[in-house]
C-alpha cells in the first residue's frame, strides 16, 4: 500500500504531494517467531508427547447412549438448585420454545427480566428425576421436547402472557403458581382475576349491603314494618297452602 501511495499523480508541477508517506522500509509486523536453536529443536523432538495407545480399540464396544446420571454430582447439584427454585419462586411456568433464534431469546429475556421473571433452562432428564420424587410429580408430562422454565418470585402472570403473545414460537404448556398446578387456560383465567384487595372489597360490600338494608328498614316507621311483616306472613301461609294442596292431590 505504501508503494502504491508513493506513485500518485501530483496535481500540478511544483505543488506539494497530496499524500506524504511517513513509514518506509520497515514492516508493520515486527514480532516474528525467533528461530529455535538447533539444540532446543533436538530436545523438543526427543521429548515429544506420545499418547498411550487406547486399551480398548475404538470400534470394539457400542457407545453408552443415555448414560445414567442419577448419582452423579451434576445431578445432585441440579436437584438442589431446582429444590431451592421451587421453594423461592411462587410462579414456575413451563414454556416450549420450538425454535427461537438467539436474538429473540435475548429480547424475550430482557422483557421478562424487567418484570422480575428469569428464564431458566434445565434438561428434561434432570427435571423428570427431580419431579418424580417430590410433590410436583404431575408436572412431569409437561417436560417433553425443548422446554424452558420461566420462574419468578412474584406471580406476574399478565406480563408473562403479554411477552409470550409477542413471541410467536413460545408456547405456554402449564404452570405451577402458588403451589397449584395450572393448565394454559387456567393461567389465562388466573391472569384475568382481579387482585385480592378488589375481591375482598367486593365481598365486604356484598355482606354490608344486606346489613345496611335491614338497618335502613328498622329505622323507618314501625307501622310500615308491621305492614311488611303481615304481608310476609300472608305470603308464607299462601305458599304453605299451595304446597299443602298439591300434596293432598298427589296423595289422592
Amino acid at each position, binding site marked *: 500500500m505504501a508503494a502504491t501511495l508513493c506513485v500518485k499523480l501530483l496535481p500540478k508541477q511544483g505543488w506539494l504531494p497530496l499524500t506524504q508517506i511517513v513509514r518506509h522500509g520497515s514492516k508493520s509486523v515486527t514480532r516474528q517467531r525467533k528461530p529455535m536453536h538447533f539444540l532446543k529443536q533436538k530436545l523438543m523432538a526427543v521429548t515429544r508427547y506420545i499418547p498411550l495407545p487406547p486399551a480398548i480399540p475404538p470400534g470394539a464396544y457400542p457407545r453408552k447412549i443415555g448414560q445414567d446420571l442419577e448419582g452423579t454430582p451434576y445431578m445432585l447439584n441440579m436437584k438442589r438448585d431446582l429444590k431451592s427454585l421451587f421453594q423461592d419462586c411462587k410462579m414456575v411456568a413451563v414454556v416450549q420454545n*420450538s*425454535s427461537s433464534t438467539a436474538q429473540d431469546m435475548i429480547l424475550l429475556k430482557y422483557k421478562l427480566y424487567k418484570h422480575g421473571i428469569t428464564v431458566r433452562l434445565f434438561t428434561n432428564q434432570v427435571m423428570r428425576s427431580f419431579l418424580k420424587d417430590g410433590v410436583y410429580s404431575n408436572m412431569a408430562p409437561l417436560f417433553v421436547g425443548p422446554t424452558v422454565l420461566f420462574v419468578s418470585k412474584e406471580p406476574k402472570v399478565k406480563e408473562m402472557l403479554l411477552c409470550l403473545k409477542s413471541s410467536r414460537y413460545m*408456547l405456554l*404448556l*402449564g404452570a405451577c403458581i402458588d403451589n397449584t398446578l395450572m*393448565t*394454559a387456560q387456567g393461567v389465562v383465567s388466573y391472569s384475568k382475576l382481579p387482585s385480592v384487595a378488589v375481591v375482598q372489597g367486593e365481598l365486604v360490600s356484598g355482606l354490608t349491603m344486606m346489613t345496611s338494608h335491614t338497618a335502613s328498614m328498622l329505622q323507618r316507621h314501625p307501622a310500615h314494618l308491621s305492614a311488611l311483616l303481615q304481608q310476609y306472613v300472608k305470603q308464607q301461609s299462601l305458599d304453605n297452602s299451595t304446597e299443602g294442596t298439591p300434596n293432598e292431590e298427589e296423595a289422592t
Partner: protein
Amino acid sequence: MLSTICNAVKDNVFRHVRRFLALLSSAKVRSSNMNCDVVTTVKHDMSEPVVEITYLDGDKLVLKGAKLNCTEMVDAFQAMCTAKEQQAKIAAKK
C-alpha cells in the same frame, strides 16, 4: 395453514407431535414459506394430539399424533407437498 392440537397430559402420546412442532418451527423451515401460519392450541383434556394442515386449494391433511411417529409425520407431509407441487406445475404448464 398448520394447526396443531398439542395435548400436555397423556402417557407420552404427545411427544411425537411436540417434536414435529419443534422441527417445523425452526428458522430455516419458517423462512421457506412465510405465508404459512402455525397455530398451536394446548389442551389438557386427554384428547388425541392432532396436526391439521390446510392447503391453499382447500385440501386437508390430518396427522393423528397418537398413531404416528415424528418421522412418519414429516414423511407424509413432505410427500403430500411434493405431490401438490407437481400438480401445480402440470396445471401451470397447461
